[in-house]
């Protein structure tokens, strides 16, 4: 119950922060980013991009996608042990917070209904077990998502429609 309340709070915070830094420079209004959004900017956004679309064939997109991983047990584990997460220059508590924020900010509709927010302890334990072969593990997860019809064939978050 407490976890659910925590998730609701995160959701509210994410909604507040949403819309954040986009075409701010052109409009002349430069927003102040929240602490958690700044952690995302400094550690994740460079590759996954501010809009979460990633880069074709190079960086997986997170927008409308990353939440799918919470729908299979191995996927939750993957999100905690993927190299970019494990090696981020953030302590366990901030890392847990930015992961939860990322999920609700970029992929709320894909999150499993019974999802419970990542905790600091969970992050700490997972960081001790980084994934060795990230591409192979990811291929397996994508195949599983497709087998469960959660993902259409040909869609893997790396080579999507719109890739040129």
């Amino acid at each position, binding site marked *: 119950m407490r976890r659910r309340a925590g998730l609701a709070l995160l959701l509210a915070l994410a909604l507040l922060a949403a819309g*954040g*830094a986009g075409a*701010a*420079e052109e409009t002349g209004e*430069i*927003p*102040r*980013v929240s*602490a958690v*959004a*700044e952690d995302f*900017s*400094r*550690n*994740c*956004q*460079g*590759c996954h*991009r*501010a809009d979460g*679309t*990633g*880069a*074709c064939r*190079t*960086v997986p997109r997170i927008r409308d996608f990353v939440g799918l991983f919470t729908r299979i047990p191995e996927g939750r584990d993957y999100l905690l042990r993927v190299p*970019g997460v494990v*090696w981020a*220059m953030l302590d366990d508590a901030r890392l847990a917070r930015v992961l939860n924020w990322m999920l609700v900010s970029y992929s709320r509709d894909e999150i499993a209904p019974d999802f419970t927010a990542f905790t600091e302890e969970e992050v700490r334990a997972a960081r001790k077990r980084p994934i060795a072969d990230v591409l192979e593990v990811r291929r397996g997860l994508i195949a599983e998502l497709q087998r469960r019809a959660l993902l259409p064939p040909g869609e893997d978050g790396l080579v999507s429609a719109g890739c*040129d």
Partner: protein
Amino acid sequence: MGNENIFDRLFETASRRIAQRSSRRSLLARLGTVLVGAAVLPTLPVDRSGRFRKAHAQGFAEQAQTADDTQCNYWRYCAMDGYLCSCCNGGVTSCPPGSEPSPTSWIGSCLNPDDGQVYLIAYRDCCGKGVCGQCPCLSTEGEMPVYRPQLSNDIDWCFGARSMVYHCTGAGIVGKA
């Protein structure tokens, strides 16, 4: 023993006076306050931006200016490593004709000396055209070695673009830190 040292007597008088006026409990209480204070102080919430602001203010920002983006000391270039797009027929946030912006960039932060604010800056490479070669700049504020690639400016940030050929680098604002 009549030859008692004057210092001994003075010290005895003083310590007896202190002993009569104060209790050992009050000493313990005060000592306790100091000890607890010393333990709690570092855990109190701190202004995160201050850490960066201080670091920035002592470095690049001392000589930075906000008027000319074709100079290496333009405030947004505090972690610039490359050729300025502003000197290559592009702008601080636009790529020169014939090159395309990389979808990826590395994110640093710089202090704007005009308003004293720290801004998150996206250093974005323009790619797909031979190297520009104009206005080479190298600043390393907040930058990390290449084994921290997401915070390093030594690497070619053209990955994700159609071509890995590097042309120049711009500096867009992400937001206020």
